[in-house]
């Protein structure tokens, strides 16, 4: 990022506008708590900003944000053992304002329901990499660095996770 204060500010806010939804979605699909997910998403940005404010530079901001979020989620798991698939309905319903999705609403809900159910049935390690790869569109290398595994392990997980997801979807 450019190191001039004004520039970095604007760029960072632009990144927020671009990625906040994606980060929130990633978070909520893993911790099933909408409010908390929003907080963690916020924290991701503030923590990243703190790092930048110290004068550090980040070459891959998207990956950095996701890594920060990933770590926050892990902390969340430790602090609060998850209750099973809570507020699945909440998850889906709250995302919509009548204004945005008038007619298509019912259709999307159904798809979303299936999708979320499936994703929550997957094992954690599969689910995470699938989210990173297909929903957040990160590269295998980036994912490997975020989760702290080798690229091979990540690749294999993606393959197997996809296979399992197929089963769930077709069932």
């Amino acid at each position: 990022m450019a190191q001039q204060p004004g520039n970095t500010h604007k760029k960072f806010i632009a990144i927020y506008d671009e990625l906040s939804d994606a980060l929130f979605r990633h978070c909520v699909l893993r911790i099933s708590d909408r409010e908390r997910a929003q907080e963690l998403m916020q924290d991701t940005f503030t923590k990243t900003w703190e790092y930048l404010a110290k004068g550090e530079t980040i070459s891959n901001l998207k990956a950095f944000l996701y890594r920060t979020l990933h770590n926050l989620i892990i902390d969340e798991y430790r602090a609060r053992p998850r209750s099973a698939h809570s507020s699945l309905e909440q998850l889906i319903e709250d995302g919509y304002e009548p204004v945005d999705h008038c007619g298509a609403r019912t259709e999307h809900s159904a798809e979303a329901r299936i999708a979320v159910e499936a994703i929550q049935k997957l094992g954690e390690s599969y689910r995470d990499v699938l989210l990173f790869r297909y929903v957040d569109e990160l590269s295998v290398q980036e994912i490997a660095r975020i989760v702290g595994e080798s690229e091979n392990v990540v690749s294999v997980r993606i393959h197997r996770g996809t296979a399992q997801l197929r089963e769930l979807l077709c069932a």
Partner: protein
Amino acid sequence: MYLCVFIAALHSYENYYVHDKYMDKEFEQFLKGIKDIKLSQKEKELSRTRVVDFMKQHPIKTIATRKQNRARFFETERTLFVSIGKKHILMPLTLIIAILLGGSVSYAAEGAFPGDTLYPIKITVNEGVQNLLAVSAESKAKLQVELANERLKEAEVLVINNRLNAQTQAKVEAQFQSHAEKVQKLVEKIEKEEKGDHRGARVAAEVHANLESVLNAHEDVLVRIKDTSEREDETRALASLILNVRAQGEIASSTNVKFDAAFTTQTDERMQKGAREKKKSAQNKIEEVKKYISKMEARISAEASAQANTRIVSASEAVVAGDVYMDGKMYRDAFNSYQTAVKIAQEAKLIIEIEKDLKVSNKNKSKVKESEQNDRDSNGGKSNRDERNEEDDDRKSDVQIRTNQNGTTTTGTNLKIQVKTGTSTESHTDDDEEDDDKEDGDEVETEIKVNVGGNSNLNVTGGVQ
């Protein structure tokens, strides 16, 4: 559904080849469904406001504010533990009194120069503490680069104040050399550390480039100062320092050659990506420095301006050279070109910064003669020292210092730390080697020498003076 049967059959063979081609309907619907999960407009804006507020409360730190924070760091925020063994002995009352003096002493020491009474504190205590706090090899290396930079800046300010002679120069030069050498060692360590994705090599290359910028920028400034110097002892001292700086520069650039070997083993795709990112950094850097130069043009000399501008031109040329390599798919060479561009641009910026700081010190030099040492009520041209000393008056000067027994990595660092107790600590009476500079003994009543060695060895000598 035949599709499902087909899929079931497929993955019963655990066929990995199809993984990414699996863009069938179910999957697409799945993705679509997933992507519908998002924040409502209201929620998004609320969070946005919070993030923006946070950003305002945490402005980006420049080197000026960083220096302030370093001193503050030492004083109140990070407390290092002097846990000495298992017994606790009550500290003498005089030690407690020492605290009141302790804080402001280290704070004021930050602005000290060779020959000042407090300079030893700046070196051993303040910077020693920073060293302890930097845990990873990377942050240590960055710190050492910064310290080398600091030594050279001190030399330049000394010249301005007509205080550079054989003794002061020798002090500064020795320190500078030790920092530069530490950078080399740490960089080797970094390179070995993270072999996984060659991140170690990249970080090492960056640290190296930083060091080179610092060395080159200062070399130019020092040469310029030397040419305009009228005193012979000053000229000689400068000549010696310049030789040293150049020598370190040679070492730095020759070590760079080693890194290329690490890069050749990278696959083309990764290297290409790395090169592209480096190019962006280079372009950003050049833009930033260009703006900086035009902003500062009025405040610095014509030569400094000219030097900075020539460098910017070279930096742009290096980017062009990099582009040529990219076209030829020589990604490693492209990366190196872009890195060079960043380095040269950084040099340009440093030259201007150094010049600016020197001008300010020059202004202050005459003011110091008029006003008292502690009265920093200057009208214009506040230096870093000014701002810090003004804050000092408002600041309370109590300090708690405890040193962590296990967390340190340097061996045999000698720190002089003033210790506070509200609680009790014990003190051995092991005698450490005497430190040459005991001038600070005049300022405080009690000092404790701490030798931090190896893993968990902490020897503390206590004394009352």
